[in-house]
């Protein structure tokens, strides 16, 4: 973990409110495990706290994140031009830990793709991505995937399966019987809840990346907790003990 000055080398629209930001850091981030994140100091003085973003890609001193403009911070970030200096703290948190010999199933909803993208790259052709989006334009987010089989669902039915991504996964789940399936998921809380309902009967191993509002991103403030089934100590820090948790440990 390090706090590294960098400069924006690119900040482009992918589609709609989704953007890809590349940063040239003055030092490499170091070893990143898929699912880890960075805290970015948005280059705007009115944005006080840093914002967490999954590490989309990290090679040497080149860092990429993909983000969706949803509020003040991401809006300000979207206005930053090439050459703007900014600070990046990371890599942070605990990422995904795929079990050896398992068959990986990756489930992403919308911008949740940013959280599993490094994992998909590492898993290569071993993984299948179940990718749920609102409409077909959003499928462009995953255009950079080459080796991975992608099964898409759109809420508006404009491409692939019409409906939510968990229902789509439901149709394929039987195919994984006996193959030691292991699910890796990142997406909105509704998606995670349906996923839980789907996987509950078979208690299929599942790791999910969770989001919460953060202040520090490094375990200092206890601001970003998620409720778990650990009765003695239910609230775990998403930034420190997470963001990836076993679905079965969470209290949803």
């Amino acid at each position: 973990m390090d706090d590294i000055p960098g400069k924006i080398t690119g900040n482009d629209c992918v589609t709609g409110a989704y953007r890809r930001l590349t940063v040239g850091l003055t030092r490499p981030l170091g070893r990143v495990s898929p699912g880890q994140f960075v805290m970015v100091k948005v280059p705007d003085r009115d944005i006080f706290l840093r914002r967490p973003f999954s590490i989309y890609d990290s090679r040497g001193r080149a860092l990429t994140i993909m983000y969706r403009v949803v509020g003040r911070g991401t809006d300000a970030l979207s206005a930053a031009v090439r050459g703007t200096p900014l600070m990046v703290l990371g890599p942070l948190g605990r990422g995904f830990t795929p079990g050896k010999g398992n068959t990986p199933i990756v489930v992403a909803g919308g911008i949740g793709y940013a959280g599993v993208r490094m994992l998909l790259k590492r898993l290569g052709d071993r993984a299948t991505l179940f990718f749920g989006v609102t409409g077909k334009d959003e499928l462009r987010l995953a255009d950079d995937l080459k080796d991975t089989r992608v099964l898409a669902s759109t809420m508006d039915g404009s491409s692939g399966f019409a409906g939510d991504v968990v229902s789509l996964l439901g149709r394929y789940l039987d195919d994984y019987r006996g193959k030691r399936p292991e699910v890796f998921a990142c997406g909105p809380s509704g998606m995670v809840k349906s996923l839980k309902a789907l996987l509950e009967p078979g208690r299929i191993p599942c790791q999910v990346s969770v989001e919460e509002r953060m202040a520090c991103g490094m375990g200092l403030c206890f601001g970003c907790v998620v409720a778990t089934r650990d009765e003695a100590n239910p609230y775990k820090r998403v930034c420190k003990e997470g963001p990836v948790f076993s679905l079965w440990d969470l209290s949803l």
Partner: protein
Amino acid sequence: MGSLAVNLFGKKLKNPVMNASGTLGYGVEVEPLWAVETMGAYVTKGLSAAPHHGNPTPRVWEERCGMLNSIGLQNVGVHRFFSHYFPFFVERRCPVIVNFFGFSEEEYLSCARSIEPHDLVVALEMNLSCPNIKKGGIGFGKEASTVHAIVRSVREVTKIPLIAKLTPEVKNIVEIARAAYEGGADGLTLINTMPAAVVDVKERRVSLKGGFSGPLLKPVALRAVHECSQAVPIPIIGVGGTATFVDPFAMPKIIAELGSWLDASGLADISAIVGAAHG
């Protein structure tokens, strides 16, 4: 090179800079970035006799000039702090100030009682912003008489120096400072967060109610420090306005800058400026 070292309750600290309670986790978390013993002392997050789970989320919210928090005093409990985290500070010879709280007088007492004197425990810092559940949730730190009483009770059960940490949500902080001093406090920490709320106009609801901290607090804290320091003869630790979450290196940077400032000012010893702004 001037000296930043200060003496606090008979213990020598290498500098007068410490984190605000609750803003540096259990101390171990900054380890990857900088050594906790860089600070004069580490202040623990609020500890209680029994562990507390804290509040549901959202717990933090950004606001212009600072942030709001409503952590709800989540902590592992004082026993686990000493068994599990304290050895880390002992290993590094880092002095510790133990911030603690309770929701009743008994909780304060049992927590204070359970803390053994130790070479590295500089003081206990009583967080007086807690609601007293027995008294209908009115904060312990609000009335001079309550402050006097609870400080005196705690004073009796421990030999460790005792600091009272005051809330700004009082009608006259000088009066409260005097009550703490007369109750036996060896020092004061000024101030805790300011109660505030953020409203989401679009959703038409209160997003978060909690304590407001950050740059906005500094002038409020400075006034409290200035006035109380003229009313009581005990050391005061000023708190407010340090943005550790914005810049994780804020603490080591402050310490380095303080050193340079001391030299640039031609002072041999940081203690020379204590009380310099009085009068």
